[in-house]
């Protein structure tokens, strides 16, 4: 029954006429084939054909006399062949005036490094948080906005990364995060700092642990046509032990519907993890996207080579 929940929800939600000024329903389906189980970045048993996930997202904008003032976002993901239901981003946002401060409360993607503007959840080649950060989404409060070319974000959250999401915070230690970014026409740059306890039991992530983390990250997105380069350098400590790493994502536009994708990442803590990935993306009609990738992962002296295919479809619709 639980597997059918997203579909039942779709059935009821689609014809709703909500009273908000603007309500957007979007969703997607992500099916994959993995030649074998990766060393990290996937839950156990994801090799072979797999309905990696499907999601429904409702975004509602409520306005006052002056303009858009409140934004409510709720996304439900059904992962791993619809076996696991998980709240993805679920938050309310008090929107400031143009160029003003925004306040977000709820479960959101932490504005750390590339995550602040790049969500690779539904792509084969992904950013490095499963190895480098131990957390991606968290429940808390965030202030963010921009002044001229400078972006800023401050976040205080629980530091809890549970498989299905939870409001329980087993310790009272919070996760503090700050990011300053510079936005330019052909590039953007950011400096992020994170400090606090992170409890991870999410098996999507490389290491399940409860550790005190400090991270300093420099991220950049550079548009060197036909290349789009994204880079993040990390350094910091886990329970006092030094950790460091880097990830480079490079996309090359071949044509309107074709692009090459690649990733190079290194990470050093008590283990050494390296990854090289090469992929291809093709945009099909009707919002379908086909991707393939070949990845080589190395965990200390263990190597793994994974070939993966993905068929992805998404939609967006105003209610």
């Amino acid at each position, binding site marked *: 029954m639980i597997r059918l929940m997203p*579909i039942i929800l779709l*059935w009821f939600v689609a014809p709703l006429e909500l009273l908000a*000024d603007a309500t957007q329903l979007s969703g997607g389906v992500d099916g994959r084939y993995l030649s074998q189980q990766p060393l990290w970045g996937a839950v156990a048993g994801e090799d072979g*054909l797999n309905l990696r996930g499907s999601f429904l997202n409702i975004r509602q904008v409520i*306005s006052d006399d*002056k303009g858009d003032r409140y934004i409510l976002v709720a996304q439900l993901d059904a992962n791993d062949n619809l076996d696991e239901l998980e709240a993805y981003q679920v938050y309310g946002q008090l929107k400031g005036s*143009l160029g003003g401060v925004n306040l977000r409360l709820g479960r959101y993607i932490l504005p750390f490094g590339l995550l602040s503007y790049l969500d690779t959840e539904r792509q084969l080649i992904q950013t490095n948080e499963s190895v480098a950060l131990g957390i991606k989404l968290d429940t808390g409060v965030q202030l963010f906005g921009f002044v001229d070319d400078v972006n800023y974000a401050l976040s205080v959250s629980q530091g809890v990364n549970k498989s299905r999401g939870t409001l329980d915070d087993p310790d009272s230690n919070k996760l503090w995060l700050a990011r300053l970014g510079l936005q330019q026409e052909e590039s953007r740059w950011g400096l992020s700092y994170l400090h606090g306890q992170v409890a991870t039991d999410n098996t999507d992530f490389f290491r399940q642990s409860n550790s005190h983390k400090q991270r300093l990250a420099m991220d950049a997105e550079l548009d060197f*046509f036909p290349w789009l380069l994204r880079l993040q350098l990390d350094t910091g400590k886990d329970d006092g032990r030094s950790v460091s790493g880097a990830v480079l994502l490079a996309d090359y536009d071949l044509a309107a519907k074709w692009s090459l994708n690649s990733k190079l990442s290194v990470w050093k803590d008590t283990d050494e993890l390296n990854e090289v990935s090469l992929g291809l993306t093709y945009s099909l009609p009707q919002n379908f996207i086909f991707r393939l990738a070949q990845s080589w992962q190395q965990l200390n002296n263990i190597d793994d080579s994974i070939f993966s295919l993905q*068929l992805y479809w998404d939609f967006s619709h105003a209610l």
Partner: protein
Amino acid sequence: MLYKSGFINQKKKFILFLSVLLLLNFFFINIVSADVCVWRDPERTMLRLFTQAEDYKTLVYKLTTEQIKSIEILLGEPLDDSEKHEFNIYAVNKDGQVLGWVMALVGVGEYGVIETVIGINTDHSIRGAYLQRVRERKRKALKSDEFLNQFSGKKQVDEFQINPVAGAEKASAEISQLIKKMLAFDAVLNRQQKLKP
């Protein structure tokens, strides 16, 4: 035996995936084929087009058959299927007074999508145009004031005689067409808007 059970498991997963995909597609394909277009940094673009703006309000128009027909008549060609469902117009204001409107539309160039944004004055002339995302080889020339300023002041009824960027004629034509479309959307959907909300 193990192989066989594994095979059945794989087959089940595949059928499950296809079923969900077909079911969703069946429910939504007739009403939804709009691109999931994330307009990144909309507020910065609004301030670029209306520097004195203080706030904005999202106006969502679900298109009726009559409205689609009117837009297509003004445009002189049919809309793409993905453009026939809804259109967002952002009313930009200061002290409660509407300064104008901002709208965005996505087209396809030779190397990817071209996200085009325009600001429209209260007399429904173009205040300015901006390319939010363009991956064409001549993108700097396409994003230049020299090219985009050609659209300033144009109204829906005006002739568009735009000098294309040399070597990017297809992309120039696509941008020009996207802007014409947005003016047609504005003419049909937005003309009845009162200036004071």
